[in-house]
């Protein structure tokens, strides 16, 4: 694992290496180099199993984090590649040519986060939602509760308590925090 990290350190601009477990490292890569880093890992280092691609919305910093997790089934090691893209112009290079199922992940991200992957097959087709006309729902600024209340006729009489607040009020009325 260490030798692989050291090797790719010399070839690509990577930073923030976090050792999650013995056989699992996270690292951050620049947006431009990510696809070539994945290609390198797949072809040279034997990371032949693509586990997942997903996005995290860091709305405070105005960035999307894309996480690619790759797995080497022979050496039994995993690597997680983080890359940050601008939230405004959310586009990323497509990696659909490396594995067939990457296109599905990218289709989902386009729909749920609004991250565009130009060139990815069927990326503009709707995957999960149908006739959705609001902002992409997985973005942090989309309020699902408000949307649900406005759209789906909530049944009167249903109350929801935040357990923390509720227990505090009920059990420890005197306690400060």
């Amino acid at each position, binding site marked *: 694992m260490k030798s692989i990290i050291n090797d790719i350190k010399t070839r690509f601009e990577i930073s923030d290496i976090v050792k999650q477990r013995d056989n699992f490292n996270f690292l951050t890569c620049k947006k431009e180099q990510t696809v070539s880093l994945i290609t390198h890992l797949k072809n040279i280092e034997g990371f032949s199993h693509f586990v997942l691609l997903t996005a995290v919305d860091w709305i405070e910093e105005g960035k999307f984090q894309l996480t690619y997790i790759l797995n080497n089934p022979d050496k039994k090691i995993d690597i997680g590649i983080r890359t940050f893209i601008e939230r405004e112009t959310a586009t990323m290079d497509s990696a659909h040519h490396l594995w067939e199922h990457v296109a599905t992940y990218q289709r989902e991200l386009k729909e749920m986060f609004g991250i565009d992957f130009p060139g990815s097959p069927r990326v503009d087709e*709707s995957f*999960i*939602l*149908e*006739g*959705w*006309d*609001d902002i992409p*729902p997985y973005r942090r600024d*989309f309020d*699902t*509760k408000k*949307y*649900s209340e406005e*759209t*789906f*006729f*909530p*049944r009167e009489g*249903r109350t*929801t308590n935040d357990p923390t607040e509720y227990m505090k009020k009920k059990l420890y009325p005197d306690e400060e925090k």
Partner: protein
Amino acid sequence: MSDINNNTNNKEDKFLAEENKKRTVIGPDGIEFEIDPLKDYFCDQKPEVRDPKNKVVEKFINWARAESLWVLGFGTGCGSIEIPPLLTPRFDAARFGVQMRATPRQSSVIIISGYLAVKTLKRVIRSYEQMQSPKYVLALGSCTINGGMYYDSYNTINRLDYYMPVDVYVAGCMPRPEALLAGFNKLKERIKAGRAEGANEYAEKFDWYKANQKKIIKDWNMPDYNW
């Protein structure tokens, strides 16, 4: 899909996709004709209220209807995991005249087994409308009553009775097969008492139901067929 709701001025057309609007096409033999997809592809006939004619005969017929419940095999949510046990040796619903049918045309009961995503709701409504009256709806799980666990989800409905008339609710997450059997028994009681007139209710309040459905289903496209 963003192009669906461009035409917001005309309220009627708000939810119409491009391919659902009236248009003229030229046939293979060169003759021009107008098609209205909503009329040609969809059933534009409103359901009618059909009241029972003879009270005594109706009572007997209702007994037959109650003892022969044909269930549409449409697993809409997680509740459908308890349908196979219901039909197998342990619970064996066939004893009570409950049988599964594969096509909505022949079924008289639709089980809404749990949460309904908007995309499924559209199919469920279509299936429900294809069923022949009298038809009954059995709603399973808390999600159909008030949203249950998914009360704050942007994609699942909260109350089923706004979109179709529900005869029996079976509460729980998830309801056990015994609860389902009890639900079937309750449904039978209702049918025998002549109170399960969901199809007539749907016909009476058709406009209200349709308005509710259209409020959340924004894409009324149906799949393209060439038959």
